[in-house]
């Protein structure tokens, strides 16, 4: 005789098992509709692989496992997917979750499936995979995916395989009748499990002594297999996994650990049968044995039920009388949960539907005060002090609850059962566990929020500091540049600072103090010694200034482009620098043009005398530049624009490459890169547009000029002449007309482009539309001025 250990505590509730054992297992048949929740197991819910309207066959997988701890769902019979929607599921909350609903067709048509005669031919991995694909989840109540338990690790050698046939809950007889009628299948399943797990010591089936017929059948079936049927005295809750392990081996599963930590794997006998059927016949888990009992049922009975069968269907079959029943329980009277709705389906873990009468399980009377009698501590199978935990739970003393090992409570209900004051102790523990978990989560979230908040504060501060630093740097740079501009030739000096100082000094000496200069000039004038700047000198000076300003502008633009390309934070600063330099440039140009305009009348007569046409051309060209657009030549502009487009394109491609790289590496800066690309794209677009506009204007103007010349100097002269003539001849109205024309042509072109862009679904469409609107505005304004003049 093998040694049987005892568990602490335990209770002896009325068994009430005989009622449902009068008849053999009956096939419940096919209900018109099956509701299959996607989460019938512990772990991630399965994910549907069928669509509404699909026809499915019996045994066809309709939802696949998601992740390691998960299990697939199969169609229990043939039919059509009616819906994939939220339905009330068997859960104490009475809430809904995703379900696949099948309208059955009654044909019960199997999908092609194949088992294997000799499972020893397959490797362990293949066998476990078959179990996984069959969607088998622990059928004793918890629903832990069986394949996960079978995936034993090498560093945890298994000594003992235990099959749980205890079924200690009152009323439930699903396992009992399984043992009586299908002992051979249980043993066959046990053999497969033994083959898979290879326990080094023994394989045991634990059964309480209140199931003599089942024990006899099992013993007969197990003859010669070496599987030992261990019978032990009936006591609730011997069937708890940890309790059974203690009873059979004397070992305790460490708190928070798994049975495999002490070299044990435990499976329910129903699970063993399901594994046998999955391996031997290739049948997935699509039905189970469920006890329907309680005095509100006319004929208590064990049914072989298709998963997804509504509870109402089973109750109807069992002669359920609703008037007698005030609570409907899924599971047993100790750990089962109440159902609010009889439409909920039977799932993989549903071992019992209990419909007691009011007299049988009366509603709980009001709780009295705890007198600390200790009957709960006497009953507790894990040696907790429920009465203490009750006080702590009421006082929300979470720390003390944890010190009293609240989380080792298996919620078996023995304490509440024994409590003479009818205190719903288990409910206190459940609520407290949830509260503590919530508090822990809140704590973690608060920590994270704090971190994020602090990171944000630090970032803002840093940004502010950087901005400040940049502002200071920019001011320095601006000063230095101004100095450099004033005295460009001296830039060759080795010592830059020295150079800058020199330059600023020189600049000061030269022109820093206009008042001083004015005074000097005035004095000179007064002295009669008129030494004012001659017109030529002034022109030269201004031209020099203009040249240097242009140089600076282009340098600044280059820097800006570089900064933008590198996503440099100084880009903004450069941009302002560029615009400032541009302003300065414009001012110088204006001054120059004014000066030349004033010179023009004086120059007019000498110009006629002047034989040298080149000189004249230069003068005219200068005049034109000053008077007309005061800007670069068309060629220059074209090249500049082309350059811009080219460089922007280069930058764009670089930015895109960077973006791609960032995306690949999941870099945090992806968003920043993306905006960078967008911006560059937009710039490229404007640059292209400008270029095309410019080219278009060039075409028209060159057409009108139509002066052919071999000599570039001559050509320049000719163009300058033409321009001057045009300038001279053109009235304001003509100018406006010209503008209008050019605007109109531009609008037309933009429209074309816009249409093309829209047709291609290009991002540029919006931009183009924007510019179109702007052009139209300008056109309207120009027309307005025209009509006014």
């Amino acid at each position, binding site marked *: 005789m093998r040694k049987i250990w005892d568990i602490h505590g335990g209770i002896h509730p009325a068994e009430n098992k005989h009622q449902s054992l009068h008849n053999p297992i009956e096939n419940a048949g096919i209900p018109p509709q099956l509701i299959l929740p996607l989460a019938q197991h512990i772990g991630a819910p399965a994910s549907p692989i069928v669509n509404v309207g699909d026809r499915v066959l019996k045994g066809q997988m309709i939802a696949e496992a998601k992740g390691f701890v998960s299990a697939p769902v199969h169609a229990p019979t043939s039919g059509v997917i009616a819906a994939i929607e939220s339905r009330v599921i068997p859960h104490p909350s009475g809430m809904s979750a995703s379900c696949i609903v099948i309208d059955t067709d009654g044909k019960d048509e199997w999908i092609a499936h194949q088992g294997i005669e000799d499972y020893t031919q397959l490797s362990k991995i293949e066998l476990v995979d078959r179990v996984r694909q069959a969607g088998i989840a622990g059928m004793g109540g918890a629903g832990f995916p069986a394949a996960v338990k079978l995936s034993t690790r090498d560093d945890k050698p298994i000594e003992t395989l235990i099959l749980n046939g205890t079924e200690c809950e009152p009323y439930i007889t699903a396992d009992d009748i399984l043992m009586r009628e299908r002992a051979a299948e249980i043993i066959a399943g046990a053999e497969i499990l033994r083959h898979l797990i290879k326990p080094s010591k023994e394989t045991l089936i634990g059964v309480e002594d209140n199931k003599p017929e089942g024990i006899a059948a099992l013993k007969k079936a197990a003859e010669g297999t070496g599987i030992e049927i261990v019978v032990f005295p009936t006591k609730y809750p011997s069937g708890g996994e940890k309790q059974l392990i203690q009873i059979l081996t004397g070992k305790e599963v460490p708190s928070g650990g798994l049975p495999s930590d002490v070299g044990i794997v435990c499976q329910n006998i129903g699970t063993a049968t399901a594994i046998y059927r999955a391996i031997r016949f290739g049948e997935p888990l699509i039905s189970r044995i469920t006890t329907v009992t309680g005095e509100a049922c006319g004929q208590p009975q064990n049914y072989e039920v298709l998963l997804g069968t509504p509870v109402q269907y089973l109750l109807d079959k069992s002669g359920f009388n609703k008037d007698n029943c005030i609570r409907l329980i899924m599971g047993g009277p100790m750990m089962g949960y109440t159902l609010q709705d009889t439409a909920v389906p039977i799932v993989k873990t549903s071992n019992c539907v209990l419909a007691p009468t009011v007299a049988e399980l009366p509603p709980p009377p009001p709780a009295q005060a705890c007198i*600390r*009698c200790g009957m709960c501590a006497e009953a507790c199978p894990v040696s*907790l*002090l429920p009465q203490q935990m009750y006080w702590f739970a009421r006082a929300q003393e979470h720390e003390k609850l944890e010190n009293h090992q609240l989380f080792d409570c298996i919620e078996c209900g023995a304490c509440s059962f024994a409590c003479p004051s009818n205190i719903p102790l288990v409910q206190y523990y459940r609520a407290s566990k949830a509260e503590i978990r919530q508090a822990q989560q809140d704590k973690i979230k608060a920590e994270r929020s704090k971190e994020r908040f602090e990171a944000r504060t630090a970032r803002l501060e840093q940004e502010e500091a950087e901005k400040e630093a940049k502002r200071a740097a920019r001011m320095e740079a601006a000063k230095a540049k101004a100095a450099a501009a004033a005295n460009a030739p001296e830039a060759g000096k080795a010592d830059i600072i020295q150079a800058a100082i020199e330059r600023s000094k020189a600049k000061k000496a030269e022109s820093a103090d206009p008042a001083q200069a004015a005074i000097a000039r005035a004095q000179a004038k007064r002295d009669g010694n008129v030494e004012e700047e001659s017109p030529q000198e002034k022109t030269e000076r201004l031209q020099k200034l203009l040249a240097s300003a242009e140089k600076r502008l282009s340098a600044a633009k280059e820097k800006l482009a570089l900064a933008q390309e590198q996503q440099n934070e100084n880009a903004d600063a450069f941009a302002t620098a560029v615009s400032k330099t541009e302003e300065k440039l414009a001012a110088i140009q204006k001054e120059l043009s004014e000066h030349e305009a004033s010179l023009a009348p004086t120059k007019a007569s000498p110009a006629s005398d002047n034989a040298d046409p080149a000189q004249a051309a230069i003068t005219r060209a200068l005049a034109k530049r000053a008077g007309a657009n005061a800007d670069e030549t068309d060629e220059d502009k074209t090249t500049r624009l082309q350059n811009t487009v080219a460089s922007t394109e280069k930058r764009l491609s670089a930015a895109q490459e960077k973006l791609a790289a960032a995306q690949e590496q999941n870099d945090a800066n992806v968003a920043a890169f993306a905006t960078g690309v967008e911006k560059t794209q937009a710039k490229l677009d404007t640059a292209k547009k400008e270029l095309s506009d410019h080219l278009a204007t060039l075409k028209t103007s060159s057409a009108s000029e139509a002066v052919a010349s071999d000599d570039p100097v001559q050509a320049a002269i000719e163009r300058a002449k033409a321009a001057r003539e045009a300038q001279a001849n053109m009235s304001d109205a003509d100018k406006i007309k010209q503008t209008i024309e050019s605007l109109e042509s531009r609008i037309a072109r933009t429209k074309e482009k816009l249409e093309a862009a829209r047709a291609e679904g290009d991002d540029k469409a919006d931009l183009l539309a924007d510019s179109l609107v702007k052009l139209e505005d300008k056109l309207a304004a120009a027309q307005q001025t025209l009509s006014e003049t």
Partner: protein
Amino acid sequence: MGFLKVSSPHAHGPMSTARVMRLVLLATIPGLFSLTWFFGFGSLVNVLWASITALSFEALALKWRKRPIGFYLNDYSALVTAFLLGIALPPGSPFWLIMIGTGFAILICKQLYGGMGYNPFNPAMAAYVMLLISFPVQMTTWLAPQGSFAGDLLGPIDALRYCFGFGRDSIDAITMATPLDVLKQNNSLLIEDLWQESSQFGQFAGIGWEWANIGFLLGGMYLLYRRVFTWHAPISMLTSLTVMSTLFYDGGSSASGGSPLFHLLSGATMLGAFFIVTDPVTSAVSNRGRVIYGALIGILVYVIRVWGNYPDAVAFAVLLMNFAAPFIDHYTQPRTYGHKLKDQQGGKS
């Protein structure tokens, strides 16, 4: 659908608080019977009057506290307090003494702390000690047992009369020191001589007292059998008392503290062991804790009886240990499944 939504478990055991209390009341019958047999109807009248006053006080307190009166009176806890106090008081105590006792027990020791389950001290014992300190004369006047004197026992009518203050003088004629008192006062006689000289000594202890104790022992055995409480506290108390009295028993000299049997069957030993020490509300909670709790009470009982100022000591010992109960609980938390004892103790604050 109209189905109940309740947390498991749905089944409930047969035990209820009221049933526990009823069983305790039932178990006092043998002891009460022997008290009546040997000392007349004084104890019965005590119990009756104490019950009436205790229930009234309880109802009053519940009314003040706006609690459902019927619901709480039905738990019989006030009745148990009344019975225990009534038994502990000397037979034929005056009505006011009893009333003050139950008033103190119910109002101060129980309801003021929040009612049943919340009281840190055993109400009956706290009231007994309060009365003993406040009214030492009345509290130490015990009737002479049957057979120790010539007169008649206190009949029911007389007992009632005495209780309510009519003809109290005549009662003094039949009072006598208790054996524990006699032993305490003795400093010249050998135990053997003392036994012969004083008429109140019986076979093992005092004449009526030994039988009253045996009666309470019987009642206690019944409660143990009905699993109303566990054996841990009472057996450990009796064991430690036995051990103490055996260790310090010198065979019966004039300075002797009495034999082990004398201590086990004297005074309130058995009443204390099975009806007071087992009071769940005020004792330690774990079985290990209850063993310690009981053992310390046993030791204290002997210490106070032999070396203290008071002849009997159960009430004092119990009250002292009521103080210590939370402390004992703290250090005797049982080892939970899957834990090592060390971890668990270390994990506590």
